[in-house]
């Protein structure tokens, strides 16, 4: 069988790649996608621990994380559309005012 630490290491690798994509990318949509990648990495460790402790609570938490991620993606993409409408750019370096 696969050891628990393999799943956690895969989760850590995905999370760190998500963090680095969040910091390196300059396109606001790609930054949003790296947030989704980080949430997926955390979900993987939730499911691995749920399996390890023989407890389904972890999988229910994954369900809630997915719901919150869906809500966050909806509102975030709406904000991106609103920002693009006034700024005409998706580069985060050029969006330096909170004012719409």
């Amino acid at each position, binding site marked *: 069988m696969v*050891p628990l630490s393999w799943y956690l290491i895969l989760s850590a690798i995905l999370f760190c790649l998500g963090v680095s994509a969040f910091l390196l990318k300059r396109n606001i949509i790609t930054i949003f*996608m790296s947030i989704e990648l980080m949430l997926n990495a955390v979900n993987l460790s939730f499911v*691995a621990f749920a399996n390890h402790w023989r407890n389904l609570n972890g999988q229910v938490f994954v369900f809630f994380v997915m719901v919150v991620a869906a809500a966050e*993606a909806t509102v975030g*993409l709406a904000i991106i559309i609103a920002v693009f409408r006034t700024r005409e750019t998706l580069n985060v370096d050029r969006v330096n005012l909170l004012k719409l």
Partner: protein
Amino acid sequence: MFHQILFIIFGAVCVAGAINLLAQRHPINSALSLVVVMGSLALIYLLLGAEFVAAVQVIVYAGAIMVLFVFTIMLLNAGAEERTRGSHIALWVGGPGVVVLVGMISWIMFKQLGEVEIGSMVNKTDNTHGIATLLFKDFLLPFEITSVLILIAIMGAVVLAGRRR
């Protein structure tokens, strides 16, 4: 043994997709590599005996959320991103930093839980049934609160993205 081979294959696909997300300049390529990551994560959930989570992962993440992303990219006609000076500095400082962070976490995991094995999934046939029981008995209030949250998110999206008069 069979599980380990499958885990290594899909884990490698996952990491390759995540690296491709980081490497691609055009957002649509990043979105498609994120779909690859989510699909192979669903297969890893199946290896862990979580059928319900795997199905929801494919339907909600790889289906709904990524369609929303691709739709926004198409709607805004997003082109390749432009590099700035700050992102070059972040690349040379942050790249080794991420490698060091992954190495430290992996070392701690191997040291703490190196020999902990995950049990077999033979008698776990009532996964979805157990989740439904938990969700509608123990977690009923959080479940209802998340439905209100989704409703508020829909209204917020309509208000924010709606055309201004």
